[in-house]
């Protein structure tokens, strides 16, 4: 079922086109005199990074983690807490955000991966809820109300993240990096084992792969990438709060991955863009946008499982007859 990824497949071409357009976006925003666009799309890029990380374990590894937003919170809180103590150096903040996320992913993953299927879904959800309540319990750092960040991460004179456009490009570069990293991982021997364990774990074990370790490694890598997106999110909002890791956020991330096309290299990009665009457009039509979005989601699940990426490929296939 896994066809070798052809670089010129329609979905990859579409992704390349979208990335080029994204690179030009600040110019459009300038021409249209709507700097808000840059803010909106920065958010999309950050979510796309988070969705890319989830795609590694959900799409390729078949692990339905319903707690992935917890790393957004963890990465964000590392940045927020360090900033509140006067440590603004991005060289310290970001690696630490990634490291702490890795630590949480290691402990939680080691427990959760002992189970499968529906247990795994419920347990990742429950542990994410635990981390959420830990965030609420951080009274010194604002508790439920969250923590304002007065200075964005500083990278000396190299990058000024307070400049919205610079920050946008940093996010874009990191997104491309994350997409490439996950793509390379999936094509590697490690990725083969991960994918193999998704289709038939018992067989992979029988031919001698300790799949638990491979799956746990994948789980930790996904947590690390998502932790980085949390550090970005904290910088973007200049604010962290437990709401960043509310369980609905985890659900949203799953929706993005599935919407874009699970287990496809560029799916998370399509998914995150489409999800946030639909959210943005619907919320402009009505305050009660979720009453449309909920049933829409159900319809997508019931009738369009392949996601957006496969839609492009299907159109291509139909054209070729």
């Amino acid at each position: 079922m896994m066809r070798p990824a052809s670089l010129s497949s329609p979905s990859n071409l579409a992704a390349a086109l979208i990335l080029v357009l994204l690179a030009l976006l600040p110019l459009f925003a300038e021409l249209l005199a709507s700097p808000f666009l840059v803010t909106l799309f920065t958010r999309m890029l950050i979510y796309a990074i988070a969705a890319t990380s989830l795609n590694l374990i959900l799409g390729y590894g078949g692990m339905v983690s319903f707690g992935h937003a917890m790393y957004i919170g963890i990465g964000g809180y590392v940045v927020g807490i360090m900033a509140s103590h006067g440590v603004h150096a991005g060289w310290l903040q970001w690696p630490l955000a990634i490291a702490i996320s890795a630590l949480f992913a290691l402990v939680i993953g080691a427990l959760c991966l002992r189970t499968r299927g529906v247990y795994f879904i419920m347990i990742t959800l429950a542990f994410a809820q635990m981390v959420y309540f830990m965030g609420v319990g951080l009274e010194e750092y604002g508790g439920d109300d969250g923590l304002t960040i007065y200075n964005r991460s500083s990278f000396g004179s190299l990058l000024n993240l307070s400049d919205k456009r610079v920050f946008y490009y940093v996010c874009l570069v990191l997104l491309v990096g994350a997409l490439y990293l996950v793509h390379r991982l999936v094509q590697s021997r490690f990725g083969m084992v991960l994918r193999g364990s998704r289709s038939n774990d018992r067989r992979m074990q029988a031919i001698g792969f300790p799949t638990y370790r491979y799956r746990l490694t994948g789980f930790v890598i996904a947590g690390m990438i998502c932790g980085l997106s949390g550090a970005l999110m904290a910088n973007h909002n200049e604010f962290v709060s437990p709401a960043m890791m509310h369980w609905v956020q985890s659900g949203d991330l799953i929706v993005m991955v599935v919407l874009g096309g699970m287990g496809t290299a560029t799916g998370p990009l399509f998914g995150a863009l489409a999800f946030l665009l639909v959210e943005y457009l619907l919320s402009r039509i009505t305050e009660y946008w979720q009453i449309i979005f909920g049933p829409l989601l159900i319809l997508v699940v019931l009738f369009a499982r392949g996601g957006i990426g496969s839609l492009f490929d299907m159109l291509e296939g139909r054209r070729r007859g």
Partner: protein
Amino acid sequence: MTILILEQSLNGLQLGLLLFLLAAGLTLVFGIMDLVNLAHGSMYMIGAFLAATFAGWTDSFILGALLALPATLLVGIVTEIICLRTLYPRDHLDQVLATFGLILFFNEAVRLIWGPAGMSLPLPQFLSTSVEILPDVRYPTYRLSIIGVGLAVAVFLYVLVQRTRLGMLIRAGASNREMIGALGIDIKLLYTLVFGLGAALAALAGLMAAPILTAQIGMGENILILSFVVIVIGGIGSIRGAFVAALIVGMIDTVGRAFLPDLLRLFLDRAAAATAAPAISSMLIYMLMAAILVLRPQGLFPAPGK
């Protein structure tokens, strides 16, 4: 001190029984239809809002509650027929996504109908008193009656599942779905009934919690995740496991929150204890879940045939 312990244990029992009402429905639906239903918490919420509305119309808490139960049962059955029925053969990811969509829909629908503020459900006179459970120890009548209703439902479920024909079909469905279909049982009808029963149980929990917590949008979600913890601890598909685990979780959560600060003060200084206690006590049940996962991954009472 002993009085406080008694009170907190009763509170823990009460939370545990509310959790049981939710977990029983969830675990039945999972055990029989193999469906992960995130929207179960929505039934809890809808039950609370409907009870508050009906109680407002009829001016009676009891009538409101009695009307809300069949009404939520109806909502559950309609949801099952329109949406969930097609999900049974799908994989768990599809079920999670679709029921996630249902939650968004129900939350927004409730906001549209009842407004964002939530609703309070005032108690009738005879329930807003307190009774003397021990000499000089008073406990709210309403909380006692929650415990009474919860225990009664547990007995009712036991009799229903173990002693009636419907219960026999439910147990048979849980161990082999194809077989009872092949034996000529209308399995679709059975599914719808079980789902409706689960919805009504969730509604009962919701409407009983409403006078204490007020009916709010999203009220079902935290308790839903708690009931997931209950199910994982108890073992999926087992009502007995759900009952035991619900009581354990309710008790540990309540008693932990009440006494952990004092307990920690024995080891830590006052300030450290005061900051650490809320965080640790909210983590207690998850630590329990982690411990169960390490020691007995299949839960305390795994359902037979799974």
